């Protein structure tokens, strides 16, 4: 096995590990819920990814960690923000100026990158869960459906609702009112995804070509469909969108430029 480079995205909801070869090709990956021990979750993911790649630990030349738990990854050599890593992963697949929309478990980001992959600007959501994965989890609980079901239900909407609240808690109250009115759950699910798309468009007008990343869009493609519909053009979804941060981190591990890791 040739040299490998490792990226770890210790996110709020899920931890992802990606191993790449020197050309940036993915040879192994692993995803599991972050839980409460970021360090051991990352280690277990690494073992899984190595097994998938059929490689031993000593094949790894460099590791970059990213995400909220980036400083908890004890085997990382360097850290980098998820904003940099998502931009890198997207530029690898779309080597031109694009706007990246990353919806994660805890926050949403809009990142504009230029033709060389450099960031022109980025924006992060306010200190509020509306429009993030946590928002969808909360609404799923209120609707009493598994999160994996929500997307399928939204596709079966016939008379979608429109949700007007800004806040997760108020949206749950609004959803409660719609349930009491007898609105179909499919129509409510559609409204929930449309609400996520609206929150993104409040952050940025999304100029140019748009590429989505993150776990939310990988597991809930309806978000991309509705965002495309709202901006009037096709939004791309990065392949294995949930792995974007970890893949970007692994690509950074090849290229360098990350920040030396400090202790958590």
């Amino acid at each position, binding site marked *: 096995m040739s040299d490998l480079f490792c990226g770890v995205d210790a996110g709020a909801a899920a931890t992802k590990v990606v191993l790449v070869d020197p050309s940036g090709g993915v040879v192994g990956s692993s995803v599991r819920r972050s839980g409460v021990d970021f360090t051991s979750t990352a280690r277990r993911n690494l073992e899984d990814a190595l097994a998938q790649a059929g490689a031993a630990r000593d094949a790894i030349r460099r590791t970059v960690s990213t995400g909220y738990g980036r400083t908890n990854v004890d085997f990382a050599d360097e850290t980098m923000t*998820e904003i*940099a890593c998502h931009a890198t992963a997207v530029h690898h697949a779309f080597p031109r100026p694009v706007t990246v929309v990353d919806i994660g478990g805890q926050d949403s980001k809009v990142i504009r990158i230029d033709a060389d992959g*450099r*960031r022109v*600007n980025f924006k*992060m959501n306010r200190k509020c869960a509306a429009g993030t994965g946590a928002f969808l989890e909360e609404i799923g609980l209120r609707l009493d459906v598994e999160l994996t079901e929500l997307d399928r239900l939204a596709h079966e909407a016939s008379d979608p609702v429109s949700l007007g609240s800004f806040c997760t808690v108020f949206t749950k109250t609004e959803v409660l009112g719609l349930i009491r009115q007898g609105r179909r759950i499919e129509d409510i699910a559609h409204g929930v995804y449309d609400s996520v798309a609206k929150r993104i468009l409040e952050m940025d007008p999304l100029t140019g070509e748009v590429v989505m990343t993150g776990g939310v869009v990988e597991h809930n493609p309806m978000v991309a469909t509705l965002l495309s519909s709202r901006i009037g053009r096709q939004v791309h979804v990065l392949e294995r969108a949930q792995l974007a941060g970890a893949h970007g981190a692994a690509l950074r591990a090849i290229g360098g*430029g990350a920040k030396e890791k400090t202790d958590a």
Partner: protein
Amino acid sequence: MNDERKPKIKRIASTKSMGLLMRDYFVELAEAAEDPGRKVAWCTSVGPAELLRSFGFDVYFPENHGAMLGSARMAADLIPRANALGYSPDICSYLTSDVGAFLAGVSPMTKVDERIKGVPGPDVLVFNTNQCRDVQDWFLWYGRHFDVPVIGVHSYAGIGDVRDLHVKSIAGQMEALVPELERISGTKFDIDRLREVVGLSRRCSELWKEVLDTASARPAPLTFFDGTILMGPAVVLRGDSRANEFYETLIAELRQRIDEGEGAVEDEAYRIYWEGMPIWGRLRANATLFLENRACVVASTYCNSWIFQDLDPEDPFMSMARAYTKLFIVRNDEFKERYIDEMLDVFSVDGILFHDAKTCPNNSNSRYGMPERYVEDKGVPTLVINGDLNDMRLVSDEQMVTNVEAFIEQLAERKDA
């Protein structure tokens, strides 16, 4: 990176003498409050302090107290007390934390010296609404509580050029305060004493500007976070010669740092402008965050707001009116952008951080598209962070770290290009 290699905040030696000066000031206030022969005036931080000092009032600044409550991270426990009285969590968190502290009978000033038992009771409260309406409402609450007069100046908002009509109106309002201040102080107004105080205040402004201007050196000898502490005397003791003596000492120390090439941030690589209020409960954390990213916050609108270059002892009322109307916060966005442009140039700034303080709309200039204009029209990188001056429940530490680190990465990419 192990702990030994982590950069440390370099303490400015003069801070110690400033601490003693501030202690003396707080003790004097406590003594004045107990002495029937002395009068205490409460004043907004950019209110007519010179006029009050000319009457011999001991002048107390509740905003300074608000900042102390924020720095001491006491505010989150106190704000709800004011909320319960109908003062919304969305209004100024200086106001709500200060009123909450009063209701709880606590003050960080009592930790400065055992002779200080609490805030000094006022004989009069004097405001200038040049910052916001909240200061007036804040003072009115205390006016009702202590049953003392609340008087003040109603300023303009959002003006472009400062015209004679603005200045005459404000000067007239300041002069109109004189009879009431004579009555409360029992002292006849003395124009020569006012000229003297205005002269001292002007000198204090010049010295404070000189302090801040040292950060145009590369590396900068001080940061915005140092400035928020070192500005204390410029706020509460302007017009008092002791403030000027302190700043002369401080300038000498900072010049020495420049001569020796010693920066406040080790291996300074990035220079940031901070627009908006400090996050008082996170001063140290934020100072460390920038330090670890080799970034120096070299200049800020906030620290610059106590530079009053128009003060003129020859024409005290008109010059006070002009100085307190020319403030950044009183002006329109066109002026504000011109002003920031100049700062970017003088301090060789790489990017601007806008702090959108939830409870301080007047000091949050990110809300009408300014950061976007800087990016799109001027090619200046900007970052908007959501937070607050005192209410740390509105601050997300994780988001702050990610935002700042991502911003520094962005600046690094620009430099590499």
